């Protein structure tokens, strides 16, 4: 079994929400367990938010293309955009934020890459032909439909 589906949308916060929802609906239609869909949605949303907030920062929002490939025990999501490359071509380490210290020092951001790394089994990033290609992989166990 192998299935692919794709969607694309403009890199705005509201369009991103619609795009993420459409991927979630497709995964649900294909019988992925709800818990796993939730985890995929968290990682996908963080990756797409990064494109909206960083790759296209300060420019007219371009497109975000998402292509999902669903196999027996693996889901791969390829996120493609024509925005700025990830600085130094290196994905952020995504270390856990420290929650020590007084209330006013608690972090209000910087969780994105930590969540992506926690929830994926493999991440691959490539810059080619002026585009970012970020592939997130998830191990899955399909419930029989």
């Amino acid at each position: 079994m192998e299935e692919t589906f794709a969607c694309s949308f403009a890199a705005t916060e509201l369009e991103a929400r619609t795009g993420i929802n459409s991927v979630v609906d497709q995964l649900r239609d294909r019988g992925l367990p709800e818990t796993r869909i939730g985890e995929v949605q968290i990682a996908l949303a963080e990756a797409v938010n990064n494109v909206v907030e960083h790759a296209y920062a300060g420019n007219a929002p371009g497109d975000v293309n998402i292509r999902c490939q669903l196999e027996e025990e693996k889901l791969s999501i390829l996120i493609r955009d024509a925005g700025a490359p990830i600085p130094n071509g290196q994905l952020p380490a995504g270390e856990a934020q420290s929650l020590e210290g007084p209330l006013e020092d608690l972090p209000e951001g910087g969780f994105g890459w930590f969540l992506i790394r926690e929830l994926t089994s493999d991440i691959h990033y490539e810059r080619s032909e002026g585009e970012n290609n970020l592939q997130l992989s998830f191990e899955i166990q399909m419930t029989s439909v």
Partner: protein
Amino acid sequence: MTLTSTMIDGTQVVSVNAERIDAAMAIQFKEDMRSQTDNGPERVILDLSEVKFIDSSGLGAIVAAMKQLGGARKLDLAGLTPVVDKVFRLTRMDTVFNLYATLEEATGGVAAET
């Protein structure tokens, strides 16, 4: 307005009337929380039972909402649905907030888990 506010036994309960607290919604949420919780009681419970999804922007907005209350007041969270709960546990924010499975537990003063 995406928030509604009620008083239960001297505690302010703020309910989020939205399915998502995501990047598209985080700034408005933070501003609405500020206006809702300006000059209120010491304890505020945020009822998240209608929220099915939160991202790191939404998480940051809830942290900001707690900071806005200042040190003398506190923000407890109730009714976390599975994905919301997951985000709080993964980021260890479950150690910063008191989390209650339901609003009833929160108002009854029984901690679901800490």
